[in-house]
């Protein structure tokens, strides 16, 4: 048995050396459900710069595990590292403008934030809420749904977004739809 195993090892080593076999893909999933902590800043436009490479994006692959010929398995969750300082500043401006009732300015600030960090769920949450304030309920719900597509796998965020959709539907007079959204929120 031992001799057989050794023989197999040798043969296999030879074959492996010149093998063109497609490698079996190791799924590079990093299940980091850690949520983005909102960074507080007293001065909206004077914050410390973000360290290199800390823009909001999921840790998805690493070079070693990524083959040229295989499709990477999608991550089951997005894990944002640090929010970009510019986005924080814009979100704070938008919030201030929202509170002042200047909803169009708030929308402009949020769209600037979206261009910088299109995968930041906070941007979509605030933007959906601004459209809700503008009584554009159809668009508000769609923006919130876009946010949901980003926060897949993050229960707390999913619950928050579904509650926002429930509020939007309530404002739009869709009571049964609001109840459904509220029930969905409770699932997380």
């Amino acid at each position, binding site marked *: 048995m031992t001799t*057989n*195993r050794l023989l197999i090892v040798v043969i*296999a080593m030879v074959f*492996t050396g010149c093998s063109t*076999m497609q*490698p*079996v*893909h190791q*799924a590079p999933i990093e299940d980091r459900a850690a949520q983005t902590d909102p960074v507080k800043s007293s001065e909206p*436009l*004077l*914050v*410390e*710069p*973000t360290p*290199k*490479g800390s*823009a909001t*994006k999921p840790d*998805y*692959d*690493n*070079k070693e595990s*990524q083959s*040229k*010929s*295989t*499709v*990477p*398995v*999608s*991550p089951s*969750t*997005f894990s944002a590292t640090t929010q*970009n*300082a*510019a986005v*924080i*500043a*814009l979100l704070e401006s938008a919030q201030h403008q929202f509170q002042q009732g200047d909803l*169009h300015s708030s*929308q*402009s*600030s949020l*769209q*600037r934030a*979206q*261009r*910088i960090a*299109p*995968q930041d769920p906070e941007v979509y949450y605030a933007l959906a809420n601004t459209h809700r304030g503008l009584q554009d309920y159809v*668009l508000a719900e*769609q*923006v919130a*749904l*876009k946010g949901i*597509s*980003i926060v*897949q*796998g993050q229960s707390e965020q999913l619950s928050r977004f579904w509650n926002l959709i429930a509020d939007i539907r309530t404002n739009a007079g869709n009571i049964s739809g609001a109840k459904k959204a509220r029930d969905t929120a409770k699932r997380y």
Partner: protein
Amino acid sequence: MATKKATKLPQRRPRRTNKNVKFGFKKKLARIAIKLFFAVVVISGLGFLYLDTHIRNQFEGKRWALPAKVYARPLELYAGLPMSLAELKIELRGLGYQFVKKVTHPGQAEFSETRAIIYSRGFQFPDGIERAQQLILEFSGSQLTRIQRYQGDPIALVRLEPILIGGIYPLNNEDRDLIQLHDAPHGLTDALIAIEDRDFYQHVGISLKGISRAMWVNIKAGRFVQGGSTLTQQLIKNFYLTSERSLARKLLEVPMAMLLELHYSKDEILEAYLNEVYLGQEGARAIHGFGLAAQYYFAQPIQELKLHQLALLAGLVKGPSYYDPRRHPQRAKKRRDLVLKVLHNQGKITDKQYQQSIATHLGIIKQASLLKGAYPAYLDLVKRQLRQSYRDQDLSTEGLRIFTSLNPIVQHKAETALVSTINKLENWYGNNKVKGLQGSMVVTNPQTGEVMAIIGGRNTRYQGFNRALDAVRPVGSLIKPAIYLTAVEQDYTLASKLDDSPYNLTMQDGKTWNPENFDHQSHGDVALHTALAHSYNLSTVRLGMSIGLNPIINTLERLGVSRPIDPYPSLLLGAQGLSPIEVAAMYQTMASNGFQMPLRSIRLVTDSAGQELSRYPFQLKQTISSSVLHLLQYMLQETARSGTARSIYQHLDPTINVAGKTGTSDDQRDSWFAGFSGNRLAIVWLGRDDNKPLPFTGSGGALKAWISYMSNETLEPFIAPMPEDIEYLWIAPKSGLVSNQTCQDAQQLPFITGTGPTSMDDCVKKNNDPDSNSANWLHHLFR
């Protein structure tokens, strides 16, 4: 009858003496003269009144038709921005920044290896003022890592002023950037007055001294070398009269100039002159005013020009065509130096200034480096979108400000990639086979739906046929994702087996349709995902015919295709024509998880005072479930990894995940590629306007341009977060049954939960067999 009357008339009249006749004639003449005199007085008075009213109305009312100004997106600077120092330079060149050793004024920049110091100019944005400031930007590779005020604190976010990329002009094609007198440097007004009308502040509209001087000079020279018109007369001529050289015009000029001087101050007249004067021509566009001329000749705001530049502009007034510094640089220099000499003689500049200025070369920028007018295809899209809400007249006269999402850096890279690929293909295949090869490209942000760049043809500055919007060409296999999407919305999974054997269809007219695979082979039973990744035609046609053409058309509509589509079987292989921008809209929905987003080129429109008129916000509508779209996204990624577009990863880093599809129309008349990363979606079309076949396919042509563009971009990987109802299963490729990671060639495929195969592949059964444990052990060892 007539003859009779003629003979009778002399008999009726009494005979008169010569004296009486003469007296009567004089009296009559005097009466006529008096009447004429009064008539002239009245007519002159009325004319004078008319002129006066006309002059005042036009001067005080709207004096100029102001073209709409179209701006590129402003560059947002923040730590973490994926941008290299070289890319910053592209932007700053577009803004006309001067690259200097030491920054001292707005509009200047200095560079070291990893650092830039810039002095921004500031800009009045609709949502607030961005003030001029000196900034230090630090870079590491292709990222901006830190931004701070010069000798100050770090800053989170700064917007640079946007590049002016074009205008929408009135019918007379006059273009101008208005300036106020206090914006005009003293050097300019001094030079202008010195060379054109040195008594400007003394005369009353006309200058007898000036006329005498000019006459003397002309007599001495024996020809016409100098005019005696004052600046006021010149303004009157340009403002109210035609350019015709006639005595009547000249006679009108004098009273009008005097009237203008009567009503308005010298400074008001000078300010009007600075904005009215004609200073050059670019094709049909007439360059008026010193504000625009500064941009046109030096790509700088007038306030930033140096003495020698101002002298040149002042010198151009005499003959913008004759002294055109681009066509006749020596003539222009001679004229500029004359202006400087006059300034020096009049004591307006010092010896040193004079010597330095005449020693400086003209410093005119190449016309090709001007970004205004450099993006005709993009501007075309902007105009089409604007015309849905604004009248042409308002667009060309009201001075509207239009803020677009054009990204000049992206546009620059896309143009370089497309044009160089076309040139390479021509070299490779020879001019005969690809004569007149054309191409177009659309680049969008897959997350926001904003159009970042558009190329309408290989001559990127050509204002004619815009292929990106108007070339409706068969899309070939670019249509296939709609078929496979429809299939997975029904009962198919990625592991479903499709029949790729030969297929014939007898049409209603009795003809037979025999589609073929590109390699003229059939591949037997193939997995659904493989059929799309390798773009097999036979299995696709069989699949399409089994699910029905109407559901596929419905899917295309939900993907964003609004054009009416006929349900012909040839649709399945992309006989349907679409323009590149329509393809972009279709793939945008695929890139954004099933959210259809109208492609937007305009962000905001304001009036000339900055008051917002209309905004074009981010809009979206989910038309396809993110779960089924996830399945399609997998197949499009597979196309890039191991399918027809696998050459991508010979050039791109494998960690940059992208997805896309090649397309080749019937007889290889069109070469397409549509694909996206996390932050860029690009559509490339190559073909010939005469619709002749090409010697290459989608992957041999358009894909090369796409790769060339993408490999020069700072890309973010495309990531599709896994929807809740998606699960990944290991599948054995041959059987399509459940496998596991220990089995050779096993592949993880996504399924909507519960729809995947449940039966086990033989490999799994073998692995569970204790006798085959040694093989498993080995497999693990060498994984």
